[in-house]
C-alpha cells in the first residue's frame, strides 16, 4: 500500500499539486464572491434596519408589545429588501410564482430574505428579556440559520472551504518537502547500482540518479511557488476577514435593536411616576412632614 502511494506520488506529485491549486483557486474565487454578495446583502439589511429604528425614534413610537413591534419593524425591513439579489440568483419561486400569489415553498422561504427575518423573530424571547444577552452568540445563532451564509451553493460549508484554503499554503510546502524526500529516496538506490570501474557503462544509472534529484528539487520549487500564490491571495483578498466584518455589522445592529426595544418598553418610565403618586397619597393620608414630599419631588426630577 505504501509502495503504491509512493509510486503514485513519485510520478504525479506535481500534477496532483497543480490540480489541488486549481481547485483551491476555483473554490477561493467562488467563496470570495459569495462573501462579497453576503457583505452587500447584510449591509443593506443593517442599513434598512437602522433606518427603521431611527424613524421610530423620531416618531416617538411606544413599544407596548415587543413581539408585535419586532414583527412590524422586521416586516418593514423585509419589504424594503430586494427579492431578487446576487444572493438569491437561483430563487426559483420569484419566476415561477404568479403576481397574485404570495406563496412560496418552505425551502424557498428559508433560503430567501424571509429566512433571515424568521431567524431574528425566532429569537423574540431575547428581545423580551431585560438582561442584555451575549450579542455574539445571538448573532451567531441568527446567521447560522441562514443557509446562504453558511453554505456555498446550498451544499458546501463555506467555513470548511475557508479553513482549507487558509492551511493550503503550508500544505503545499509540506507536499514540496514530501516530494523532495521521495525524489532523494528514488535517487539514492541508483548510486548502489553504479559501477565505478565502468563509469561509461553506468551512464543510464547516472542519468536516472540526476532525474530523480531534479524531481526532488522540482517538487520543492512547485510547493514554494504554489504556496506563494495562495499566500498572496489570502493576504490581499482575505475571505475570513470579510466575513468577520459582516458578522460584526450584524452584531452591532442586533445590539442597537435590543437596546432600542428595551429603552422604549422600559417599565420604569411608566411605573416610577405611578409609585410617586401612590407615595404622595400615602404621605397626605399620614400627614407626613412636607420635607418628605419635597424629597419625592426631587427624586421625580
Amino acid at each position, binding site marked *: 500500500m505504501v509502495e503504491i502511494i509512493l509510486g503514485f506520488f513519485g510520478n504525479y506529485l506535481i500534477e496532483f499539486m497543480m490540480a489541488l491549486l486549481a481547485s483551491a483557486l476555483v473554490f477561493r474565487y467562488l467563496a470570495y464572491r459569495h462573501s462579497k454578495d453576503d457583505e452587500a446583502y447584510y449591509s443593506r439589511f443593517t442599513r434598512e434596519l437602522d433606518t427603521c429604528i431611527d424613524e421610530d425614534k423620531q416618531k416617538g413610537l411606544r413599544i407596548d408589545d415587543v*413581539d*408585535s413591534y419586532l*414583527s412590524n419593524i*422586521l416586516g418593514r425591513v423585509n419589504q424594503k429588501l430586494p427579492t431578487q439579489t446576487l444572493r438569491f440568483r437561483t430563487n426559483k419561486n420569484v419566476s415561477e410564482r404568479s403576481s397574485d400569489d404570495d406563496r412560496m415553498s418552505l425551502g424557498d*422561504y428559508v433560503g430567501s430574505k*424571509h429566512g433571515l*427575518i424568521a431567524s431574528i*423573530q425566532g429569537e423574540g424571547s431575547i428581545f423580551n428579556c431585560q438582561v442584555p444577552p451575549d450579542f455574539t452568540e445571538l448573532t451567531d445563532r441568527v446567521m447560522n440559520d441562514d443557509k446562504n451564509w453558511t453554505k456555498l451553493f446550498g451544499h458546501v460549508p463555506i467555513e470548511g472551504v475557508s479553513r482549507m484554503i487558509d492551511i493550503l499554503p503550508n500544505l503545499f510546502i509540506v507536499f514540496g518537502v514530501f516530494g523532495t524526500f521521495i525524489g532523494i529516496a528514488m535517487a539514492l538506490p541508483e548510486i548502489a547500482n553504479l559501477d565505478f570501474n565502468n563509469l561509461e557503462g553506468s551512464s543510464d544509472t547516472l542519468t536516472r540518479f540526476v532525474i530523480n534529484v531534479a524531481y526532488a528539487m522540482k517538487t520543492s520549487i512547485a510547493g514554494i511557488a504554489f504556496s506563494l500564490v495562495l499566500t498572496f491571495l489570502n493576504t490581499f483578498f482575505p475571505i475570513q476577514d470579510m466575513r468577520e466584518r459582516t458578522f460584526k455589522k450584524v452584531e452591532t445592529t442586533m445590539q442597537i435593536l435590543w437596546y432600542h426595544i428595551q429603552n422604549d418598553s422600559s417599565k420604569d418610565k411608566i411605573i416610577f411616576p405611578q409609585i410617586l403618586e401612590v407615595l404622595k397619597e400615602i404621605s397626605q393620608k399620614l400627614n407626613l412632614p412636607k420635607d418628605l414630599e419635597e424629597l419625592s419631588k426631587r427624586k421625580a426630577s
Partner: protein
Amino acid sequence: MSVLQIVKGCPLFHDLYDAEIMTICESCSVKTLVPDDYIFKKGDEGDEIYLILSGSAIVSKGGIEIAKLRKGDLFGEMVLLKENVRHADIMSDNYTDVLVLKYNDIFGLYQTNPKIFSLLILNLSRLLATRLKGAGSYIEELKIKEFERNKKAA
C-alpha cells in the same frame, strides 16, 4: 432552524419527531402578508390549514374582534373535519408569515405514513377537545354573570 422550532411548538405536531415534522412541512408553502391583508373571509371555501410563523392576525365576525392569533397559533383546522366553509374573517394586523398546509397533503399521509397521520388526527382531537372545554368554561362564566345580573335586577 427557527421555522422548525415554531412549528414544533404547535399542538398539532406534538409527539412528532423533527424528521417527521419536516416530512409534513416539505409539501407546505408559506404565504407572506402585510397589515390589513385577509387570509380568508367568512363564507369562503377552503381546504387549507394555517400556522402563523411570524406576526399576528385578528379573528373577527361581523366586525367584532373575537380573538387575536400570534406566532405558533393554528387556525382553519376545521377543514380536517371536512368543514370547507370558513366561519370567521381572519385578517393580518402586522407583517405576517403563515405556513399553509393543504388538506390533501395531510390526508395523503394516510397512505404514505400512517403513523404520522394517526398522530396528527390524535393531536387534532386533543386540540378540538381543549377548545371545546374552553368554550364550555366561557359559556359557564357568561351564564353565571347573567344569573347574577338577573338576581340583582330582581
